[in-house]
């Protein structure tokens, strides 16, 4: 099966900012969390992905098709939710949905109605009178009613309350029950996608630092504490080290090799704990020393 997304040597440049070259793929059936601080290039990536911006070089393919803005095939396969939620303000929700529906051959009114009911949204209400949460819900309904194979989400839950977040994520979990669908999810808040994502990609200042399976990342990163009278330790994988007397607390991005090295030094009395995705993200993005990049 074709990759849902393929970035191939893609570069987008503005004055004073360069995104890329981006080289990565997202397979069908997976959720990729695209994590980076504000201003790292997440939204630019999204705009290149959805065809709103054209890259200076390289290309993006959606299910095998280059995302040429003049072609419509690939557009019918994607659903997009940004953080802005743009609608015709003085139209009702229903009228907005009706308007968008004409652009999608696969649009299902029933699917839209089901989601409206589920989200407890008043379809006759004017969009201008919706709360922020309900606007976000309407965006998601609009993005899902044509049953897209690829859902592109650009910080969709920014500023939403916990109840709406949870309703939102429930729908995303249902989307991914179908193994032919994929979700590309950008955010600066790592906790919100911790449980949803299969893979994580870290973006900093326009370049991709790392893309890996979530479980692999969680297995490899550890905090280890131990005692040693030798203060001149050269341990592989270590990204942070604190020493107090003979007490060491280190953070490693490669638990196996650090552990092997410790055993070779006959240091066997260790305690180790895992790191949260949030902790790991901070190290990767704000460059604790030695963090390997791809």
């Amino acid at each position: 099966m074709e990759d849902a997304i393929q970035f191939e040597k893609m570069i987008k440049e503005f004055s004073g900012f360069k995104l890329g070259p981006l080289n990565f793929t997202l397979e069908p059936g997976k959720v990729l969390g695209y994590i980076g601080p504000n201003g790292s290039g997440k939204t630019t990536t999204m705009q290149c992905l959805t065809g709103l911006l054209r890259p200076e070089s390289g290309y993006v393919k959606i299910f095998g098709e280059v995302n040429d803005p003049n072609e419509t095939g690939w557009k019918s396969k994607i659903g997009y939710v940004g953080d802005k939620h743009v609608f015709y303000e003085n139209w009702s929700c229903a009228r907005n949905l009706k308007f968008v529906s004409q652009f999608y051959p696969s649009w299902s009114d029933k699917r839209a109605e089901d989601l409206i009911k589920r989200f407890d949204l008043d379809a006759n209400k004017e969009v201008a009178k919706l709360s922020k949460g309900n606007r976000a819900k309407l965006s998601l309904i609009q993005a899902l009613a044509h049953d897209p194979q690829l859902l592109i989400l650009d910080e969709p839950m920014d500023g939403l309350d916990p109840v709406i977040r949870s309703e939102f994520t429930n729908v995303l979990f249902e989307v991914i029950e179908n193994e032919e669908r994929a979700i590309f999810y950008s955010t600066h808040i790592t906790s919100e996608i911790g449980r949803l994502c299969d893979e994580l990609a870290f973006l900093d200042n326009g370049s991709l630092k790392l893309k890996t399976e979530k479980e692999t990342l969680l297995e490899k990163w550890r905090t280890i504490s131990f005692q040693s009278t030798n203060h001149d330790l050269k341990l592989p994988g270590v990204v942070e080290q604190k020493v107090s007397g003979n007490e060491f607390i280190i953070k490693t991005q490669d638990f196996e090799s650090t552990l092997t090295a410790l055993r070779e030094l006959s240091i066997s009395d260790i305690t180790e704990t895992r790191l949260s995705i949030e902790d790991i993200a901070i190290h990767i993005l704000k460059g604790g020393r030695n963090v390997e990049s791809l």
Partner: protein
Amino acid sequence: MILNLTDLSDEPLQSQIIRQVRAKVLSGSLKAGDSLPSIRKLASSQKISVITVQRAYEALEREGLIHSRRGKGFFASGINSDTKKEMAELRIQEKIEPIIKNALAEGMSIKEIETLVKELLKSIEG
């Protein structure tokens, strides 16, 4: 199948799934041949990523507790009582070893630990 998963534990979600499914198979609440939810179904119902469930199912398959049939999904395996006992022994060993090491590091002697464990067992039995 209902699992009780939490983010407020040192135990990773993947291990929580493995431990709880293992307990269901070993206790017989999942019998040989019973079907398990598909990876995607379980991920969706428990609100965890597909990769987490996939890794957990793979580990359970390696342990011989579940098996997959192409196109049909995952099923609980039949476990004979010898294997069950072996697995229980392995499990208790894994748990006890670090506790004993910790007690030794805190200055207890082997003899003292032995006495303590014996008394504990007696009170549990009684």
